[in-house]
């Protein structure tokens, strides 16, 4: 028998209330029933970061998080950090510096970098590498991703421009 539980959470700023099966994974809820396909699944074992979402601002692997765990909390996905009329400053930097090729890892990287810069607007080179060590990219070789992030780390922007 499937155990259904009511949950209510904020998804990209909008309240979502629904019943979910206890064993539903967050990524399946968001990509499936809620129809937001920006988040990608690759390794399915918390290693690659393609499925990164933010939970109360912290990066998590949505492939290995239960939907019931987000009850009463705030979830942000790639759709939530993409402005309706274009790209965020993190996304623009990735485009400008060629920080993507096939793009499969990109939503996860954008989420991780967004969280990093929120917590630490001017990370050092080592801090950038340390924070992003758990996001894998099989195309770029990381150098261009690093350069994209570095360009943001040395930029001085007002709080609300992020």
């Amino acid at each position, binding site marked *: *028998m*499937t*155990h259904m*539980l009511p949950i209510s959470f904020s998804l990209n700023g909008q309240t979502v209330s629904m019943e979910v*099966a*206890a*064993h*539903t*994974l967050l990524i*399946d809820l968001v990509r499936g029933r809620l129809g937001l396909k920006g988040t990608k699944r690759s390794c*399915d*074992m*918390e*290693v690659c*970061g393609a499925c*990164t979402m933010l*939970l109360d601002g*912290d*990066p*998590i*692997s949505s492939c*290995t*998080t*239960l939907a*019931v*765990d987000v009850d009463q909390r705030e979830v942000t996905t790639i759709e939530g950090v993409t402005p309706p009329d274009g790209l965020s400053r993190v996304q623009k930097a990735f485009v400008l510096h060629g920080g993507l090729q096939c793009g499969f890892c990109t939503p996860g990287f954008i989420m*991780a970098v967004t*969280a990093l810069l929120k917590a630490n607007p001017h990370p050092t080179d080592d801090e950038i590498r*340390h*924070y992003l*060590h*758990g*996001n894998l990219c099989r195309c770029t070789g990381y150098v261009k991703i690093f350069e994209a992030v570095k360009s943001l780390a040395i930029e001085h922007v007002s709080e609300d421009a992020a």
Partner: protein
Amino acid sequence: MLTSPFTFEKPTTIADAIEAVGDSGESMFYSGGTELLLAMKMRVIHTERLVDIKGIPGLDRIVLTDANEIEIGSRCTHKRIAADPVIREHAPALSTLCDNVANVRVRSVGTIGGNLCFGEPHADPPTMLAALNARLVLQGQTGVRFVHADEFIRSELETVREPDELLTMIVFPRPTGPVTYRRFKHGERPSVNVAMAWSMEATSSTIKTARVRVGALGSRPQPLKAVEDALKGRSIADVRPAIEAVLAEALDELDINDDRHGGADYKRHLAGVLLLRNAEEAMTRGKRSR
């Protein structure tokens, strides 16, 4: 991949959580889920019911007590421990360790309690906590008991914890000398790690006692008894020759698996290298703190 279905409960007290898990063998505590969900997705673990302990207040405290001991709640995430001011001041090596476990996502939700209770041999915290002479506080239906970190892991993926016992806290004496930790890894998890904690005489640069643990090689961290004995009562200046005199013999006594992390001889060699590097660091830190 989905796990097979289970029911889910989120009690708000320790007593309710322990009762919910009970002794039927069909329920499990659920904390960050970073190990458990993976194992369930891979169908290595099956359970009828998850008892989520995230709703229990007070399990994520970190305090330095009047008895000069450091208490870490089992629900503390790696992220929380890495950033905690008490840990940074009194056991900075533990804070660095937690800052380097896994990746940023696992550190956001994975806990120290879950790490210990899973009993994975290729882990960082068990080695360090054994060197710190930590005790683990287990609470079950019949009461509370303390288990030394050295005795907690029984064998690979198996601990002495009964299924209905909740790990509530980890307690260790505030270190009085340098604590050092190093690991070598080429995959996700450590292939070999070495932790060393010295307690120092109050007025000289003499080591009162040393605890040395080597981890990830067998099912649980192992002491290097001969090195500990050689360091006892030794002045910091004499540390290197003291270790070198007994190192080969001490390393020979380790129980080491050949596994995908490397052959036994290779890992034995690495343990020696990491130990000597820890000693170098401890010597500079021991001197500086005088």
